[in-house]
């Protein structure tokens, strides 16, 4: 049966009514009209849907709404905007770190979580962290450079 849940998304509390096992991804995209998290596989394999849950990067395509309620949810929209991007987002823009960009939002989220726990990651740290995120255009090296650049500038 559908139930109503209070969600804290990007610092704002909102109320959503849906089946408790609804993947958080669809609530973010459809009920809250947030574009950042993407449907890529629905199986937690690719990382396009990653969001921060209490600061940790998680796959919203397999996270039930009921499990997300009451926790701090941060999507890429919560980091910055096109006009005022965060330092990390700016680093991705500066490095022109994508082609199609479909994986990009998940990459930024994973990097944000990494930098929060390790402000001076090595290249190997970044690659290891992002190894569960897929990119098909071959933008990997630019993405790694963007994260390292943001780390140097103290983005976390």
């Amino acid at each position, binding site marked *: 049966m559908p139930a109503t849940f209070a969600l804290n998304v990007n610092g704002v509390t909102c109320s959503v009514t*849906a*089946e408790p096992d*609804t*993947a958080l991804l*669809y609530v973010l*995209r*459809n009920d809250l*009209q*947030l*574009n*950042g998290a*993407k*449907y*890529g*596989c*629905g*199986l937690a*394999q*690719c990382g*396009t849907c990653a969001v921060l849950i209490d600061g940790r990067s998680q796959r919203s395509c397999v996270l039930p709404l009921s499990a997300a309620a009451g926790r701090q949810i941060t*999507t*890429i*929209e919560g*980091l*910055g*905007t*096109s006009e005022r*991007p965060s330092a990390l*987002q700016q680093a*991705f*823009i*500066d490095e*022109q*770190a*994508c*082609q*199609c*960009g*479909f*994986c*990009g*939002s998940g990459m*930024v989220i994973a990097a944000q979580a990494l930098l929060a726990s390790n402000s001076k990651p090595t290249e190997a740290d*970044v*690659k*290891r962290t*992002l*190894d*569960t*995120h*897929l*990119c*098909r*255009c*071959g*933008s*990997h*090296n*630019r993405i*790694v450079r963007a994260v390292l650049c943001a780390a140097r500038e103290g983005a976390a």
Partner: protein
Amino acid sequence: MNDNRDWRAAGAAEDPSRRVFLKAGAALVVGIALGPSAVEGEAAEEHARLPGSLNANRMLDAWLRINANGTVTVFTGKIELGQGIATALAQIAADELDVDYSRIEPVTGDTSRTPDEGVTAGSLSIEQSGTAVRFACAEARALLVGAAAARLGVAPAELRVADGTVTGPGGRKTTYWELTADSMLHREATAAAEPKSPADYRYVGDSRHRRDIPPKFTGGQAYVQDLRLPGMVYARVVRPPSPRAELVSADLERTKALPGVVAVVRDGSFLAVVCEREEQAIRAREVLRESATWNSPELPLTLADTFDRANPGLPAHVQVVSEKQSQAAAPAVKRIEARYTRPYQLHASMGPSCAVARMADGKLTVWTHSQGVFPLRNDIARALGISPQTIVCVHMQGAGCYGHNGADDVAFDAALVARALPGKPIKLQWMRDDEFMWEPLGSAMIVKLTAGLDDRGRIVDWQHELWSYPHTTRPGGKEGVNLLAAWHLAQPSKPPFPADVPLPAGGSDRNAIPLYDFPNQRIVKHYLPEMPLRTSALRTLGAYANVFALESFMDEAAALAGVDPVEFRLRHLSDRRAGAVIEAAAKKAGWAPRARRDEGIGSMLRGRGIGFAKYKNLMAYCAVIAEVQVDRESGIVQVTRAWSAVDAGLSVNPDGVANQIEGGIVQSTSWTLKEAARFDRSGITMRSWADYPILRFTEVPAVEIEVIQRPAERSLGVGEAAQGPAAAAIANAFAAATGRRLRDIPFTPERVRGVLALKRTPDPQENPYRSNGGGKE
């Protein structure tokens, strides 16, 4: 990367040739764009030929509009794929018009607004659309300056333009925004206005940041997946379990009773569910799928059948595509032959295909990430039996497609559902398994090569024989319908005959003709139009397999001749730009003859190899050097580094060029090391990324690119230039590292362990790099 920032000065000196190049370039445009090619032919008979896509879309106001609010709208029939075309076209327009770049607002593929430029494919956008925009804007500038001259009462030559402000003697001025009138650009282009000389470019040649990027990293609306319309409902399809299956029954009533179900649509073997909420549609899809029974005939062939026999056993169109004979050549004293294969491979886009469609007031609107909105519109119209004039197809970005993926098919799926539910906007999203099971595949191929070398170690005879399924079965043909669901309807449409793309661009035989100077050569294709598995355009078409084979075989021939592979290539090349990219890549990599292998440490072997091609033999020149590390124990091949040099003529946006080459090398590394479609006689057996692994961050090589900027040369397509050379570079590096050769893609650990375990053939020349001992025949 090196974007040679001092090229402007060099370009100035070469300026007089510029115009000639652009005109020559226009004549070279080849008809891979399916839509307007017929129109182009007719137009050419009645009118003078115009450059690029201007020829088929001849009105100036089809390309640009000067707006009273101080902006310029530039229209292109091409679409943004994340390749940066909207940015590059804006750079060209800003330069030709003499306005600030920020004033340019590009509008991409929209059947109701933009010129018809067929498909955005084949690395042709700068050549076709860029050329049209350049000439249209140059002519618009001349018209605006003419109007300013009349208004200010001075000669046009006395006027200067800066950011749209036209200034004459004594500081009298007016602006484009004051001068503009609807009628001014509503006229046929003449291409008589001289485009800028490269020395005067302000934006072209500059690595401008791409305009499409900021929304992509900030959650802006960037993709068709992000489109939300009032009252929109969510649809999913239930596809057959195999390509030839027919629906026997499905429990529509039980599905309709599920929460949120708006409709269940069935037409023949096409099944879809529509729900108020997306998660409801996903659940209803499962219920409907489980209730369905199908009649599923087995596929006639598997890939193993195809590759295990010399003749695949299907009707083949055999054609000699190139033949050259010279009596003067020295006789061959040594001969080698080898057979290379490439499996079926996938586009494997990060986002499964998606479309939004709405039928309202007798008009169908489809928002789509198709590469060709006009061809798509034609096929939808034909399949639905309605006029194309009642359909609007609007491009919005999707995940990178790299060719013909599910984009067009999902658009038609959405159209079918929209037709069944007039008034309701439908968002139809394929699930991951839909994309893996139903995207058209890149064709499997076999290439057999034979070469004869004379007593000086030069190749005097070269034979290339290939077998391939179709590489282009996109919508947009003159007859038939190339849309998946159209074949499943109660009143089905038929696909048209899948003709191969003709040379010089070529399809299955793309890049099969060597750029090297061989006195005798014979290139034969066996084209197999009957597809056991549906195949279509995957980035590079046949060039990936042909260049992999050709460039691997060049190394085999070099080893037989006992000559360094770089030197061997240069000895056979008279095209100086080809030699220049090979030399530049070698320099960048610190290539040292006879030092392509080191012993590595422990079980590791290391080596370097080179690959080269001029894409389609018409486009960008690209050389790639790869360094690989081979683990003797596990059989794992890692590409550790890659260097590349690319000559794309005038690079409008050098970082965009570098991004394409870098991405192409990484993608090709993934194809070459890891990728092969899985299937059996029931059909495709891939459902998720677990069934089709691709390269991951820890496996990606470090890449360095040198873009050789040639401002006086016309721009050459670059989007598919690196894949073939990268594959061959990896194969040649493996051979350098191990003394064995891999001739079957992908280079899986099993295959690597297999060739390393083979007993080594004694080498009469004691050349450590000779590599005829390995490989599967």
